[in-house]
């Protein structure tokens, strides 16, 4: 199922590339280039072959772990300084995953805690304040949240650095310190969604007859939520968490740009601007894989927590 989805996605990615206006040759060589030069350049990159053939070559290569070679820095523009897409993408992906894990480690437990506690004290002052606060942070665009954080935590009180420029030599503690603000921004953006969904999934179950039954057998509100509602609410909660984790990987471009964080989102944006098709395709494919894997995990959690599927008759 996941593999089939991936196959369809690969076709869509490839076709989208074909639809992109402009072409790498013209972009690089400029308006003044003669038709012969452009044609020669295209031939070198293999762009003169039909799309179906190129798609086939690409898929076969990808299956062997080869995402191709970046268009930039080719022979035609002087000496061959071109780099493998894999070499470009992997360090960036590592950075993005580092940032995503950092945000997730804070955001997921926090939103579960907030979701459960607001369900427990629903319609109380606490519930309303948490709801309002999280709704506020999700309502602002990410870059706005990011700049506000920079203003208060970096400019006015220098707690964290405003630039999160890390490289391969930055050691672990330093990385955490530098990535703190982008991670905080992402946390603020995704907590609302996960927390509200957790709260809603639990409250939705509170109308079930077995919840009334639990209350009538003397269970306290905390016990009702933790022992009776939560175990049956994991499937929707896992889905929304997976959705947000995927967002942490694929949707962080804006935050990366604001904090000059060398992640994969920024790489992709640069590649689109220069029509560097192999890089764009590589990034898009990695995003698709991330989405599919996370959703698969959520489905598996949904199955594992469902006693009907786990303990068949």
């Amino acid at each position: 199922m996941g593999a089939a989805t991936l196959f369809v996605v690969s076709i869509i990615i490839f076709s989208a590339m074909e639809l992109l206006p402009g072409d790498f040759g013209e972009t690089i060589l400029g308006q003044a280039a003669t038709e012969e030069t452009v044609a020669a350049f295209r031939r070198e990159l293999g762009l003169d072959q039909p799309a179906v053939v190129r798609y086939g070559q690409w898929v076969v290569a990808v299956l062997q772990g080869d995402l191709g070679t970046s268009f930039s820095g080719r022979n035609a523009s002087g000496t061959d300084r071109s780099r493998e897409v894999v070499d470009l993408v992997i360090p960036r992906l590592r950075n993005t995953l580092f940032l995503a894990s950092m945000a997730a480690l804070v955001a997921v437990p926090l939103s579960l805690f907030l979701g459960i506690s607001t369900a427990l004290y629903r319609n109380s002052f606490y519930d309303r304040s948490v709801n309002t606060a999280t709704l506020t942070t999700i309502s602002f665009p990410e870059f706005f949240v990011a700049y506000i954080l920079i203003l208060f935590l970096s400019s006015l009180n220098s707690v964290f650095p405003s630039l999160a420029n890390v490289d391969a030599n930055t050691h672990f503690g330093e990385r955490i310190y530098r990535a703190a603000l982008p991670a905080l921004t992402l946390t603020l953006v995704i907590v609302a969604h996960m927390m509200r969904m957790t709260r809603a999934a639990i409250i939705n179950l509170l109308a079930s007859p077995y919840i009334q039954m639990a209350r009538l057998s003397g269970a306290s509100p905390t016990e009702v939520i933790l022992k009776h509602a939560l175990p049956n609410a994991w499937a929707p909660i896992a889905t929304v968490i997976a959705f947000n984790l995927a967002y942490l990987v694929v949707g962080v471009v804006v935050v990366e740009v604001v904090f000059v964080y060398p992640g994969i989102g920024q790489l992709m944006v640069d590649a689109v601007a220069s029509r560097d098709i192999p890089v764009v395709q590589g990034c898009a494919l990695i995003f698709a894989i991330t989405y599919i894997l996370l959703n698969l995990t959520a489905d598996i959690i949904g199955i594992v927590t469902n006693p009907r599927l786990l303990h068949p008759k």
Partner: protein
Amino acid sequence: MMNNKTKRGDVLLSIKGLKIQGFSDEKWHDIINGIDLTLHAGEVLGLIGESGAGKSTLGLAAMGYTQPGCRITEGEIIFDGVDLAKLSDSEKRKFWGNRMTYVAQSAAASFNPARRLIVQTTASTIRAGIKSRQDAYDDAKQLYDVLNLPDPDNIGDRYPHQVSGGQLQRVMTAMAMSPRPDLLVFDEPTTALDVTTQVEVLASMRSIVQEFNTAAIYITHDLAVVAQMADVIKVLRYGSEVEEAPTREMLIAPKQEYTKSLWSVRALEKPQQEAQASVLSLKGIDASYGSAKVLNNVNIEIPKGSTVAIVGESGSGKSTAARVITGLLPQKSGIVRFDGEDLPPELARRSKEQKRRIQMIYQMADTAMNPRQTVREIIGRPLDFYLGIRGAAQTRRVTDLLEMIELDASFMERLPAELSGGQKQRICIARALAAEPDFIICDEVTSALDQIVQEGILKLLMRLQEELGLTYMFITHDISTVNAIADQVVVMNQGEVVEQGLKTDVFQPPHPDYTALLLSSVPEMDPDWLTNLIGKRADAGH
């Protein structure tokens, strides 16, 4: 270990002048207006009434519990000297699952699907500190045994979806009995069960209540059931008491008109018609859902102008037979012959005329209508589709049809949500009639309705049959409904026809085993019925 401080005969619970309101449509409505109730230790009180009478609300209030959106506005609920109406939730929790317990209507929905049965059975007993975990588990296994559950030592390790509905209902009774409460509230505990299962569950509930001398409130709309369980019966209507009397007295001589009308529904009986030529026959029908076979060589003859009742428990294949006739489920083999011609198995291959002549009315009138369409649109659609009647002619015809089902033209612009349960079912009948069919399949059309409303619908169906010469196939699990309307009876069990023929023949001995079991399981208004039946079955078993 037992926490019964009360002796038999002492007043255990006394409710005085209780008023409860519920919040809906932006305002508070009275649900219970001023009810008094006294329950002695070890006594079983039956609460009966139609839906909306407030019986469940009263039963829960006896435990000091109100559902979300409800509030107690007046009155006191004194349980063993303590006024529950004045206690906070955390104080009441000390009583719940300890000195008072609850058995809900739908056991399947009332167990937490994620926890093992024995954990749920003993949770409140352990929490209240009545027994240690080990003792509570041992005791639960004994209770399972007393309640006649299969494999009592291990059934508790299962999850709720792994046992049958009747078993779950008994596990819930064990759960309610586990802390040895003083008061047990049964809220329609057997309504969702088949009759043959109901007998066993009722018998085990009654014996366990007697064994531990527990006081109980038994809520139901079924008079015959309450007659088996209760020492005293209280009749409720619109949140007020109609009358209260000891069970035998109440059954023999109800005082109030309303109570008498509840009793009279069961007396409805149709004069039986002799069999005529068949209008529809099923010959050797096999059908299955995927690989699961649900009908096995089913042969049914339905005589023209008569009512044929298909009787059987859930899973017997009676609704599947209807799906085969209407073409919704093409049969694997066999023939459906209607008025001399063989119908194509698939709905898509049937002509419009063939579809028009067979119509269906469903159990849940609620879900059988589009909630966004008005009554005019609902009835007008088959008029347009089958007969091409539009515009002013359609309006006239809808008015006629409404008149036929005893509703006036003012209902034309209403939405389903603005109708009562009985009115909704009438609209569904009108929609079926609009196609001017010869044959109507009624699938449990009265089982979601109150008894008095049921009587109205059944009378309407019979009148329409007389006037229009309709043939009915009436699917039901309720034997008293069969008595009321059927000419012919088909008994089904596990996908096969057990017996069929004229009602008088089928209902008279000798019976095949299954028919005998089914008929003897239908509760009767005699308070000794259950005792006698259990005695007879025990004798037969030895």
